[in-house]
């Protein structure tokens, strides 16, 4: 595993990002943009699931925001992997980074639990609890991520 992370840091792309004063901030900005889109779409979607903005049609609203959230997640994953590759061994050893990864995993499990259990019409039974959990988890992911830069 140690060798794998050290190997990541030696990739041409990682070495280029480490030294570039333009590419790194650009990738960093795109990571922030993806996270912003992800958190906003997740928050609005979860609030709708909890019963807010009832004037907006449930199925169409949730479907649209879920699509945005998934696209934003892919963007965050790609840009995040690039940022990670620059100092892979350092980040992989940070408890706050591992906590962030665990929180993303939990948020993913929560998402699949929602798909599996929260079925049947608008605001299905039990969906509000999963939606609140989703808001909590994604907000925690954001905070854990920001702390990587300060510990």
């Amino acid at each position, binding site marked *: 595993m140690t060798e794998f992370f050290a190997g990541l840091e030696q990739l041409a792309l990682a070495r280029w990002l480490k030294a570039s004063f333009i590419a790194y901030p650009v990738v960093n900005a795109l990571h922030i943009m993806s996270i912003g889109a992800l958190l906003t779409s997740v928050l609005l979607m979860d609030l709708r699931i909890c019963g807010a903005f009832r004037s907006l049609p449930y199925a169409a609203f949730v479907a649209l925001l879920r699509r945005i959230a998934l696209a934003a997640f892919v963007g965050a994953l790609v840009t995040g992997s690039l940022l990670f590759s*620059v*100092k892979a061994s350092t980040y992989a050893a940070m408890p706050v980074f591992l906590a962030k990864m665990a929180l993303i995993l939990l948020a993913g499990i929560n998402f699949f639990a929602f798909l599996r259990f929260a079925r049947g019409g608008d605001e299905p039974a039990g969906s509000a609890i999963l939606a609140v959990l989703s808001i909590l988890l994604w907000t925690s992911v954001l*905070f854990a991520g*920001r702390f990587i830069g300060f510990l």
Partner: protein
Amino acid sequence: MQSPFNGIRSVALTAAVMLAAGTAAYAHHGWSWTQDGFFELRGKITAIYIGNPHATLDVDAEGEAWRVEMAPPSRTIAAGFTEEVAKVGDEVTAIGNRSLEASEKRMKAVRLIVGGKTYDVYPDRVPPA
């Protein structure tokens, strides 16, 4: 159904508390985490990292492992301090400000001296000559 907004209110509260706590946790960003007076560290370089997001030196000073934070890489390199001018094992003198946390072996350098050459990574903050 039950209003979910009690849950949301507690999320906002948690976020606010974390933000407040976060301001105390600055590491390499800014100077709020460092002491005012100048601090000088002498030792041997054990690791050198000049790159994004932050340039750092690891220094062994009489058996103590220190972390020396430097300027952002663009500024560090502009000051002439690159991975070519210093290597692991070199003697280094780092002048700057140490962490407010006395037990923490961490400082932020404004000036580095390696191989008889002086590199002012924060020229506007160096001690008066």
